[in-house]
């Protein structure tokens, strides 16, 4: 390893045009990367971390950006040290994909859907190495083996949509490594992936780095990922570098206030060990710490779900008959008590969100029973169902999408009040004002439109809206997943505070194990549409029984930089298909009660 840096970025400034004139996305950022080193840039959205990396590749210009000043000195194989800021397009093309490879956030959309994997991999080699298609295919095969993809020969002839997300990300990595680049830029490469897949990909990148000696610029928002990957860390906030240092120093002795906030807000898996009740999140300088008192649910059931099944029919053939079904959820049963939070946790496709929507009858379940507060939900007429919704509300994942962009916040929060005719005239506005107070939003926001608010503020509006009808039960579907960690903590605390004050029960749907551990009374782990394990939080996190639960827990990245993640590098696995021919009846699920309230699925998906 030479001590001479591979790339030196010096006082980089990148601007984007906007309605208000040029906006600086990156301000005076400097950092170096040594050969073979992994440098992580960490920051929340708007920090400029991704812009910095695309500026290296001169890709910002395609989205209208302009490198205003600064230098990007790169030690090129052929041309010696050159400034990539001023390099011409021809030079850049010889560097892109050749000396610098790049990996992206969403493998599904990062590959061209209309060309085979083989074609796309060969393209790089044909451009930079002048290889024939046959030569390129041979090299592609090697690469696919390198990234440990099953059946590599077959993959070459497949199209992107035929592969799972984890496999595609391996393809993208293989493609980036095709010309043995000296620098690999990985821009949030695991954010779109499930936690188990994320672990595999992180392990793979780390392994490959060691095998090929390429330096890695790793961009992420996740401190836990940083802890696992980085040699050195650059922390960015609103376009500026706020702190830089070796990973251990950043994690253990952060200097800058923002780094501290970031680290503090991250829930750490296992930190709730031994505690029976949920606890509020740590938020620096937040006064809601007062509500840190534990919330204790009653024993009175508010919602009982029995054998809930949802299948989505697939029509086909001549008469549009149902030829197959997507078995979205299978035989789901659980109970939620008053003032209790039950978390449904699982990876994408596990059926956790479908369960939430079916309980509220936003979709019609195929079979099963939902009893809410003594009322059979599925037996209600559409009109009665509407009235019942007063008591059962929902908070959605996407704070940008769940608010109607064309309506003032006042009207949005007043929507349920209007629908259920709870108030009239100016009383509506008073009530909305009260709700804004309750979720700590300034009252003058009532006249604003959603686009004027930040993500966290929007989610508060969504909560206020759900509260408008004094519900007893709220389904929170990935309610904080889209928020930056610092904001996420505040919103979670607000939800817990409301539970304490108003006695609301939550069905908390999430993929984030650490958050679930923090906020839940009880937890149900879902996989392939089934609950594989259900119990109190302590039972699940401290004594997991089902293999899947164990895998899930092991895959969660932690803030401990000492864990070697390379041994997680496994072959990409194949998940059984949830699509079955019409008429298929799955085996009756059998649960074993391990201890009181702790059941494990024993006859399926072992």
């Amino acid at each position, binding site marked *: 390893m030479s001590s001479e840096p591979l790339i030196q970025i010096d006082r980089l400034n990148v601007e*984007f045009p906007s309605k208000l004139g040029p906006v600086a996305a990156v301000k005076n950022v400097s950092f170096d990367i040594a050969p073979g080193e992994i440098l992580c840039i960490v920051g929340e959205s708007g920090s400029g971390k991704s812009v910095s990396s695309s500026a290296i590749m001169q890709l910002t210009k395609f989205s209208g950006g302009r490198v205003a000043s600064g230098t990007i000195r790169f030690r090129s194989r052929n041309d010696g040290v050159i400034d990539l800021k001023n390099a011409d397009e021809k030079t850049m093309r010889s560097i892109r994909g050749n000396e610098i490879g790049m990996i992206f956030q969403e493998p599904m959309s990062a590959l061209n859907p209309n060309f085979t994997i083989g074609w796309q991999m060969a393209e790089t080699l044909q451009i930079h190495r002048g290889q024939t298609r046959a030569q390129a295919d041979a090299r592609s095969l090697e690469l696919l083996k390198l990234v440990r993809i099953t059946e590599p020969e077959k993959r070459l002839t497949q199209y992107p949509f035929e592969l799972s997300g984890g496999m595609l990300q391996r393809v993208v990595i293989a493609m980036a490594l095709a010309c043995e680049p000296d620098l690999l830029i990985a821009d949030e490469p695991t954010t779109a992936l499930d936690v188990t897949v994320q672990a595999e990909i992180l392990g793979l990148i780390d392994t490959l780095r060691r095998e090929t000696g390429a330096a890695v610029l790793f961009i992420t928002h996740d401190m836990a990922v940083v802890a696992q990957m980085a040699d050195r860390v650059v922390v960015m906030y609103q376009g500026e570098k706020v702190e830089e240092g070796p990973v251990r120093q950043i994690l253990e002795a952060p200097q800058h206030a923002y780094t501290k906030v970031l680290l503090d807000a991250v829930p750490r898996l296992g930190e709730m060990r031994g505690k029976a009740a949920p606890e509020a999140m740590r938020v620096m300088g937040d006064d809601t710490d007062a509500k840190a008192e534990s919330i204790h649910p009653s024993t009175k059931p508010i919602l009982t779900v029995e054998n809930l099944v949802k299948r989505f029919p697939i029509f086909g053939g001549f008469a549009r008959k149902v030829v197959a079904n997507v078995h979205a959820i299978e035989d789901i049963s659980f109970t939620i008590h008053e003032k209790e939070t039950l978390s449904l946790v699982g990876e994408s496709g596990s059926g956790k969100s479908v369960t939430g929507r079916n309980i509220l009858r936003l979709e019609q379940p195929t079979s099963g029973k939902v009893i809410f507060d003594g009322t059979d939900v599925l037996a209600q007429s559409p009109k009665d169902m509407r009235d019942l919704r007063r008591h059962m509300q929902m908070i959605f994942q996407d704070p940008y999408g769940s608010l109607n962009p064309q309506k003032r916040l006042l009207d949005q929060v007043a929507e*349920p009040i209007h629908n259920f005719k709870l108030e009239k005239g100016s009383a509506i506005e008073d009530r909305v004002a009260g709700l804004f107070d309750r979720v700590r939003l300034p009252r003058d926001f009532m006249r604003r439109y959603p686009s004027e608010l930040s993500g966290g503020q929007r989610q508060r509006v969504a909560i206020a809206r759900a509260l408008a009808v004094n519900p007893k039960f709220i389904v929170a579907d990935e309610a904080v997943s889209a928020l930056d960690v610092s904001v996420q903590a505040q919103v979670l605390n607000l939800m817990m505070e409301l539970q304490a004050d108003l006695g609301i029960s939550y069905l908390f749907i999430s993929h984030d194990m650490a958050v679930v551990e923090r906020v839940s009374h009880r937890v149900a782990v879902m996989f392939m549409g089934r609950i594989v394990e259900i119990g109190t939080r302590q039972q699940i996190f401290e004594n997991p029984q089902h293999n899947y639960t164990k895998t899930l827990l092991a895959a969660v990245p932690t803030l401990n930089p000492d864990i070697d993640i390379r041994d997680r590098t496994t072959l990409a696995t194949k998940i059984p298909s949830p699509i079955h021919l019409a008429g298929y009846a799955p085996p009756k699920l059998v649960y074993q009660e391990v201890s009181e309230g702790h059941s494990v699925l024993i006859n399926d998906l072992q």
Partner: protein
Amino acid sequence: MSDATTPELDDIKDARDVNITKLDYARAILKDKVTLVAVLFLAALVIFTAGANFLAPHPPTGLNFLDSLLPPLSRGANGEFYLLGTDELGRDMFSRLIYGARVSVSVGVIGALVSGIVGVFTGLTAGYKGGLYEDIVMRLVDGMLSLPSLLVALFVLFVLGGGFVNLILVFSILHWMVFARLSRGLALEARSSTYVKAAKALGATDMRIIFYHILPNVIPPILVLLTLEIATLILSEASLSFLGFGVQPPDPSWGLMIADGREHIRSAWWLVAFPGIAIFLTALSLNLVANWLRAVTDPVQRWRWFAKG
């Protein structure tokens, strides 16, 4: 909507996503010279159309053999000035163009509005409600869209006879599907959007969701289509009138003016040239405005129209 974006765009979302006010739209138009000209032309057209009785220098009907077929910029027997010349009955072309705008533009606007209202209603309800209703509606829409529409229009007008009302009837029958297909797609998209699910969870009725929640959000693309359809219908009106199945005299529609004037295409070119140019400029302006509207309401592209620096 659900198109994946790059993390880079995440970083600059704030720069791109700033709230755009009416004033910004006005400024963007002023900056875009071509669109500005189109808007001014349409504004002038509307003013002249509405105020034809006051603004037209001469009556559109009547008879004045003395001033028959005078070329543009000439003076009549009694010293009247004819900006764009006269036709064979000695009527002022400029005035007839203004009155002709009334017919042509109102056929376009009313036809597009009627088909728009019908199409948006059926499309939104079909897209939102789904099921058999949607199936039937979309089967009908697809079927009718695959028909040769000019031909069917021609045939129906052949059977029913031409005229203003029949023309609008035929246009509505043959164009509502365009709106229905778009609206259904928009409703389908909206139905899967979270704010609609939220509205449903909040107890809104289907009709309220469709018309209070979804409709305001899908106005921009519908408005774009409406503008394009007005242009299409003005062109169709001209074609049908040319073939004798459109507006009937004495309504001086532009298409009819071309049809009547083509006898004299060589000797009195202005009879054919000016109505043709009027249609062209009107359709072009509508298309330019629609194009601009589409660009500035497109969440992915709009920043280019508002960005400075």
